[in-house]
């Protein structure tokens, strides 16, 4: 499988289905593991790092049920291809920018990926559409078992799985749920929500963003603690807070509809109008407007677009995706034009789009 083939498709986590999928985009779990016989990345020699990559690759390739996995040597990839994998959330920004032998193995449906030589030797990641952490845990636990059949992970009797950073020690597990919270952003309640989550030991991060900066009003809620609580307990903690966040977001949406219907409808319609007609548009503005449109569709203010289409547009209008889909490298100005055309083609489906695609 080549990256171009991935580009036209859409990862499992963007399917837009699953429980509460109007607000909950995806559920993911990752496990941090290190091979016991090698230093952590920071102290790996070039040879060590290559040996770790080789050992993990051999292990991945020996599992017969994983024969469909695609293995990418991240070091050998072009910058735009690394960026592409970051946009799809298959590797992290840090992994893309790092140096030395490193790789990623990707399941054809993009339900899981194995990042090799990121901050730890191995980061296993499982993604599910909607709110479905139990399933994600079942899968990742099994993947971990399979790898552990052939390799020995660094483990300490009292501290559990040992990781390069003490923030991940113990279970090595990060559970996160990605939510779309535009109404909480509009009503400026989001900061308040974040602070209360922090108080109960949960972290909130914006999609692609650093700190609390969120693109397209997407936020990831995850556990901060990894030690001293069993995996199921950590999952339960995140799982139980999500319905509350959904409720707050729904209340904020109801408030906007009841108290401010014209303004809300205006906001959504304008966003849609710009996306359908713009001739050049930045990635930031696109994300921002798509967020309004997404909420508008969920509230029944806009018809004839499907949520999965909008979910897909969030990813496909990112810089590297546009270039992969177009098949050529584009600078910022050309990307903005290409993005506007792409949006027009996919939002004005019934009208001139078919003609456009023929040309």
């Amino acid at each position: 499988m080549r990256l171009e083939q991935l580009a036209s498709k859409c990862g499992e986590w963007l399917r837009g289905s699953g429980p509460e999928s109007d607000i909950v985009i995806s559920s993911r779990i990752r496990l941090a593991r290190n091979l016991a016989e090698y230093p952590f990345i920071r102290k790996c020699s070039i040879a060590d790092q290559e040996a770790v990559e080789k050992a993990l690759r051999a292990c991945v390739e020996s599992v017969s049920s994983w024969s469909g996995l695609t293995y990418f040597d991240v070091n050998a990839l072009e910058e735009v291809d690394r960026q592409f994998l970051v946009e799809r959330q298959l590797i992290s920004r840090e992994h893309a920018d790092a140096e030395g032998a490193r790789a990623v193995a990707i399941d054809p449906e993009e339900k899981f990926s194995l990042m090799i030589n990121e901050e730890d030797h191995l980061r296993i990641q499982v993604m599910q559409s909607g709110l479905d952490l139990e399933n994600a845990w079942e899968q990742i636990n099994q993947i971990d078992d399979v790898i552990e059949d052939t390799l020995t992970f660094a483990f300490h009797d009292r501290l559990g799985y040992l990781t390069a950073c003490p923030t991940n020690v113990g279970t090595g597990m990060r559970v996160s749920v990605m939510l779309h919270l535009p109404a909480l952003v509009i009503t400026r309640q989001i900061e308040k929500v974040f602070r209360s989550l922090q108080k109960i030991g949960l972290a909130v991060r914006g999609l692609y963003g650093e700190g609390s900066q969120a693109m397209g009003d997407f936020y990831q809620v995850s556990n901060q603690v990894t030690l001293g609580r069993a995996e199921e307990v950590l999952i339960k903690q995140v799982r139980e807070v999500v319905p509350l966040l959904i409720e707050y977001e729904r209340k904020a949406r109801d408030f906007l509809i009841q108290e401010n219907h014209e303004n809300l409808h205006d906001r959504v319609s304008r966003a849609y109008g710009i996306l359908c007609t713009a001739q050049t548009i930045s990635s930031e503005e696109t994300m921002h407007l798509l967020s309004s449109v997404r909420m508008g569709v969920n509230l029944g203010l806009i018809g004839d677009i499907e949520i999965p289409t909008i979910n897909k547009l969030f990813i496909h209008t990112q810089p590297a995706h546009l270039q992969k889909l177009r098949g050529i490298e584009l600078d910022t100005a050309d990307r903005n034009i290409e993005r506007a055309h792409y949006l027009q083609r996919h939002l004005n489906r019934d009208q001139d789009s078919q003609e456009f695609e023929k040309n």
Partner: protein
Amino acid sequence: MKCQQCEKPATFHITELTGSEPEEIHLCEVCAQTYLAQPEEADEVSGSLANMLAEQIKIGQTAEDLQRLDQRACPICGITFYEFRHVGRLGCPHDYVCFEEEIEPLVVNIHGETEHVGKRPKRSAKGTDKQTEVIRLRRELAAAVEKEDYEQASELRDQIKEIEGT
């Protein structure tokens, strides 16, 4: 519609709910970002683990103690305590043992716990100290090869094989 704070077109329409009545604010992207970023309280928790470590470790240490501590190095991977507290990343599994006293309060601060509960690997569920020894042997092996001490190198290779074989 123009931005209320400058001449650019307003693309952000914010509804402020903190007053007695909802208030509409219309801003351009730049002004909106500044407006929304108005911190109610600044917090820089993320991304500064190294700073947190540095701060925590300094507490209760005299300058001389800290200097002595900084120079301590892990016998397995060679990372100094100074390096760890600056980058916030450990060098190998043994660091958790050799810097135990210093790492323990950190772990408590982050997790509020000191003992792992949950999944254990089927193999080496009691810990992987023996495998850690391989890290040291490999480092010594590289040094022996560097010095062209092939006799020692061959001995080290045998030792590594022995542990790996078990």
